[in-house]
């Protein structure tokens, strides 16, 4: 019983971390229909800039802020220079964002050097405590909390404000939205910036979790995020959250009970979902 609870909590934390990663992608891919292969690049930049500030100042929160700011700035630049010319064209999006991914990944080494960097949780989130026989790791609880917070926040913004509608409408028919007097370019840029900031934030949160960050981690995690977005049903936040948690839990339990298959967990899960529920777990209506 303890074992199951402990596995579940840790799986949940991993799931939340993956969700944070996927959230930005869901926003950009789900709402704006942009295949952003540079998502991983934004993620890495968030991690490196955040950790750099964190190590410099010793203040974790400042690190988080730095990551978010980095994400916003990079998001604005990316949207303006890279994404704007290719809205609506998946093929061009793939090429141009992959190009950007290479540039971002390599620039990391110019700015921060080629070596991997280490990061530890801040003192107030370091370590673990026992609850009965169950070990609770503080940093993981923190991740779970942040995940819930981000989920609630985005759901609120998308459901309770007109922004979500405008963005979705803008993707379907840009000209029409403009004809309704909405400056869609501005809205798109804002959304992209938020998506990028989410990527950057998750990069920063990831750093103390895994202990090290390195320039190449971007693509790897971007693929994971991509998988989660697909399993969850594209563009659905609820779906992404659910899928991410599913992936996290499956990983945890498979690693314990069927270790031989643990390498293949993600892919098996995705194959199963595609075959049995091709629209994803939560199909976006329409």
């Amino acid at each position, binding site marked *: 019983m303890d*074992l199951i609870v*402990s*596995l579940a909590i*840790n*799986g949940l*934390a*991993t799931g939340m*971390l993956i969700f944070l990663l996927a959230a930005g992608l869901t926003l950009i891919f789900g709402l704006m229909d942009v295949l952003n292969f540079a998502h991983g690049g934004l993620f890495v930049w968030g991690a490196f800039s955040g950790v750099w500030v964190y190590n410099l100042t010793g203040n974790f929160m400042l690190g988080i802020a730095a990551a978010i700011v980095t994400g916003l700035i990079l998001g604005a630049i990316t949207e303006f220079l890279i994404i704007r010319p290719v809205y609506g064209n998946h093929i061009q999006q793939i090429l141009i964002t992959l190009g950007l991914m290479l540039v971002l990944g*390599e620039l990391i*080494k110019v700015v921060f050097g*080629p*070596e*991997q*960097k*280490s990061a*530890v*949780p801040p003192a107030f989130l370091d*370590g*673990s405590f026992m609850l009965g026989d169950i*070990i609770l*790791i503080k*940093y993981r609880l923190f991740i779970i909390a942040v995940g819930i917070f981000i989920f609630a926040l985005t759901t609120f913004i998308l459901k309770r404000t007109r922004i979500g509608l405008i963005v979705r409408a803008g993707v379907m028919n840009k000209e029409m939205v403009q004809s309704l007097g909405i400056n869609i370019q501005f809205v798109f840029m804002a959304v992209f910036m938020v998506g990028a900031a989410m990527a950057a934030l998750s990069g920063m949160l*990831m750093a*103390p*979790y*895994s*202990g*090290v960050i*390195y*320039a*190449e*981690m971007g693509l*790897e995690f971007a693929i994971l995020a991509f998988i989660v977005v697909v399993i969850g049903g594209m563009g659905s936040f609820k779906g992404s959250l659910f899928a991410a948690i599913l992936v*996290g839990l499956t*990983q*945890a*339990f498979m*690693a*314990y009970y069927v*270790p031989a298959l*643990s*390498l293949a*967990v993600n892919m098996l899960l995705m194959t199963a979902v595609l075959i049995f529920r091709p629209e994803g777990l939560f199909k976006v209506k329409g």
Partner: protein
Amino acid sequence: GDEDASGESEGSSNGSDGEGEETAETVKIGVLASLTGALEAYGKQTRKGFELGLDYATDGTMEVAGKKIEVVFEDTETDPKVARQKAIGLLEDENVDFLVGSSSSGDTLAVTPLAEEYETIMVVEPAVADSITGSEYNDYIFRTGRNSSQDAVAGAAAIADEGVKIATLAPDSAFGQDGVAAFKEAATDLGAEISHEEYADPAATDFTANIQKIIESEPDYLYVIWAGANTPWNQIADMKVQEQGIQISTGVADIATLPTMEPLVGMAGFTVYHHSLPDNEVNDWLVKEHKERFDGEVPDLFTPGGMSAAISIVEALKNSEGETSADKLIETMEGMSFESPKGTMTFRPEDHQALQSLYAVTLEESDEHDYPIPVLERVLTPEETAPPIKNN
């Protein structure tokens, strides 16, 4: 391409023994390393070490047995295809007399058959796969780097003893599995018992389940073989493994990874190299020169390896009196001993693997750095860490 365009495209299998005249005075060495990509840091250590090694071995003259030494570095980008292409370029267009490399086992394996084809000596450094001097061995391959089995033997020597129970954690890959197999053999030879073998997805972020199982097997030691991006150290600490009476042991890698090992302070393990460990002239020279040339930086994990490779080549040339034919060199190098930053190394005649010292250490807090450093327990002698011969 050089002037001697004699249609090598067809006659390549004849190899390059008919070199042009200019090589009469020069010895060319081609070094393959990952100078970009994920293993960039390693590749660059090798390069620095190699350059320093030539300087040291030739006393700065860059000449041996009357011949000028010329080095060409090529980036393999950690891609076997690129590695092979660059190697062909070195062998064909540059007519190199030696190949050195490379940072990854895959790159190296893609190149070793070329060494045979071109009858050119290749000094492998620092790729670790056993198969390079094992199942994929050929006569032209010499390795100054240590292989996985040596690591395993050293790891076992550091902790294994009569009646000790050890659990292992390793990535679920050939590297991890072979490593554990070798470790198991060495450890059981020393009388220890392997209580549990745990393999984890190297890309995973969560190791709770794996650690949980290890705890359940109630070992005295947890021996970790790890080479991967995400490190398990934090989680091992968070899961209070040590508090439950299980000691951790592992190989200590390069300086950049030391800060991540903070949670493991006090553990007993081994390492291939840390600049503070070896006690010999070559190493003193290396540390001093390295600091001078590179802004006060100390040599890292693979720097001495690069240096050893360079020294072994110069040494071989000295012994062969400048003769670069492969036959002669193989004869010279088999069984050859030379002084390296890690003490005396010897190319074992059977599989051309250099036997070398490794270091049993404990990880301790240091006053100079804000990360822990390995402190010498004892030097594991070349004889002690000699791996089994596997090339038949």
